[in-house]
């Protein structure tokens, strides 16, 4: 069993509180992603779990063992560092077997474990090379291999894909997913890339300014974000937000238009309406439903779909998803259908008060 529990974790650096009370449970064999912008505390939390930093307050429990005060080398955790941190003076084989040799394991056991990791990661041709003779992607696999040979209770990944180029990143992402299935181990993965989070995670913990904003399955977070921050962080391109006032059941936009949001009749006061680009449509000319007019400022054609960025006066910039063969050009006037069936509503403090 490898269940990790964190209670009320706090950490300050030079008088500034960076981790402001984290509570979290990572279940056995779960792939949990720590997601968030730079400086939100996700890497620090990972390092606190690893023992590379000491917590000021709180507890870290691994299967009911309190490891909060335990030394780094006694926690039975393995970490894959962002910069790989391979030992430059050792070969790949020696890198992967270092921990086992320190533990004075007998040679046969070492060879067996190293062999297994080598096979999983296809590292056979590189076993006798030194890190300087490897490419970035190969080094990364060795870093992962080094963690695998140790058969730790929990794997920790610190932004492992950020130093790879785009193509390699996508391929390695798949490999990590496969790895999780094959090893069936508990993994904690830190990243700022929401695509990695959405595709790899069993559950995502979104960090913001030293606290966890929300934890849950990716789709839960996507469809029912608990506040504006989470809603804006997941989803590419970002969710559209515009200010509105609710009076007597109808939602009034900045430009005076009134729209209706199904099921949101009991709201009141100043709100922010959020709706994702894929839930908006360009008007199809039949004049039905609520619409709003604006000017097309930028068109991004991706081939499979197109994103139209529309400036609507007194409302803001609205992003709409259109088909791949969308033909209109920037600078033209355009009309958007404002079907707010799938809209979220956030109150003045950013908390979600209505989900579709």
């Amino acid at each position, binding site marked *: 069993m490898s269940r990790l529990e964190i209670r009320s974790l706090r950490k300050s650096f030079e008088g500034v509180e960076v981790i402001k009370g984290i509570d979290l449970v990572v279940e056995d064999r779960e792939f949990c992603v720590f997601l968030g912008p730079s400086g939100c505390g996700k890497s620090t939390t990972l390092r606190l779990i690893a023992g590379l930093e000491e917590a000021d307050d709180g507890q870290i429990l691994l299967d009911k063992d309190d490891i909060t005060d335990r030394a780094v080398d006694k926690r039975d955790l393995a*970490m894959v560092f962002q910069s790989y941190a*391979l030992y430059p003076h050792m070969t790949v084989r020696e890198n992967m077997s270092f*921990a086992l040799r320190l533990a004075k394991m007998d040679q046969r056991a070492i060879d067996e474990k190293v062999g297994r990791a080598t096979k999983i990661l296809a590292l056979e041709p590189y076993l006798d090379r030194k890190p300087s003779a490897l490419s970035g992607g190969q080094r990364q696999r060795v870093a992962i291999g080094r963690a695998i040979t140790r058969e730790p209770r929990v794997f920790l990944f610190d932004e492992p894909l950020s130093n790879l180029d785009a193509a390699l990143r996508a391929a390695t992402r798949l490999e990590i997913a496969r790895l999780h299935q094959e090893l069936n181990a508990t993994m904690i993965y830190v990243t700022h890339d929401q695509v990695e989070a959405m595709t790899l995670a069993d559950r995502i913990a979104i960090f913001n300014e030293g606290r966890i904003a929300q934890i849950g399955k990716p789709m839960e977070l996507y469809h029912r974000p608990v506040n504006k921050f989470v809603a804006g962080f997941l989803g590419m391109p970002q969710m559209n937000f515009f200010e509105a006032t609710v009076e007597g059941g109808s939602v009034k936009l900045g430009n005076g238009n009134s729209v209706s949001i199904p099921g949101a009749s009991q709201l009141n006061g100043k709100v922010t309406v959020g709706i994702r680009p894929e839930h908006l449509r360009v008007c199809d000319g039949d004049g039905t439903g609520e619409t709003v007019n604006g000017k097309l400022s930028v068109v991004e054609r991706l081939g499979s779909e197109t994103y139209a960025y529309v400036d609507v006066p007194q409302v803001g910039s609205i992003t709409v998803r259109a088909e791949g063969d969308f033909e209109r050009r920037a600078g033209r006037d355009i009309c958007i259908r404002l079907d707010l069936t799938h809209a979220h509503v956030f109150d003045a403090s950013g908390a979600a008060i209505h989900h579709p």
Partner: protein
Amino acid sequence: MAKRKHNQGARTIRIIASWIVAIIIFFPILWMLLTSFKSELDAFSMPPHFFFTPTLENYEQILARANYLHYAWNSIVTAGGATILGMIVAVPAAYAFAYHPTLKTKNILLWMLSTKMLPSVGVLVPIYLICRDLNMLDSKTALIVIFALINLPIMVWMIYTYFRDIPYDILEAARMDGASTGQTMFRVLIPVSRGGLASTALLCLILSWNEAFWSLNLTTASAAPLTALVASFSSPEGLFWAKLSAVSTLACAPILVLGWLSQRQLVRGLTFGAVK
């Protein structure tokens, strides 16, 4: 076309000037080397003999008399001993400064630098008296300790800058792999930084070998290193120029070669890490 020729011309002049300057600066050493192969008569002749029959008699005489080997041995033991002692103390210190700095670390490092500025002469009296009272006048041990102390600041600084160049996460990875502090140092840090450590040791070796204040004042016969042997040739009557040259060549050649081989690496230590 004309511009290119002009540049070629300027470049050629620069190259020739470089060679001339280099030869002028090297000349005394060259002359010393040549003189060591002359007979004393040739060595002292005026005008100087540029062409002569080389002889090995000077070297034979120096090596035959147990003298030279004795002094050379003293140089080796004192310089080597000081280097080993210095490294044993400096490496842990540099490790602490580089990877576990406190607010005081900067000040401590600068203070170490300032101890190097302490003029040896300022402590000549007490050190002399202490050595006399501990019966360590004319002892290699005293020299070893003193050489280590005077070079410690440079060594700590030099190793400190090398350690700072090593990414810390390699050491963190070792810790996560289960290494204790000692194992991290010996199985990861030291092997990775062995180039820098070698340069530091080399610099200490060179500075100790050439040290010419304590080695002259604290020794007489039994512990005197080569600096003292050469100094004994300073008496005006003995015009043993050829022998002086031979002794000097033997005394300086090893260090000269070591210096040539490691010149680039020494820069960092000699400038306390300011120039790399």
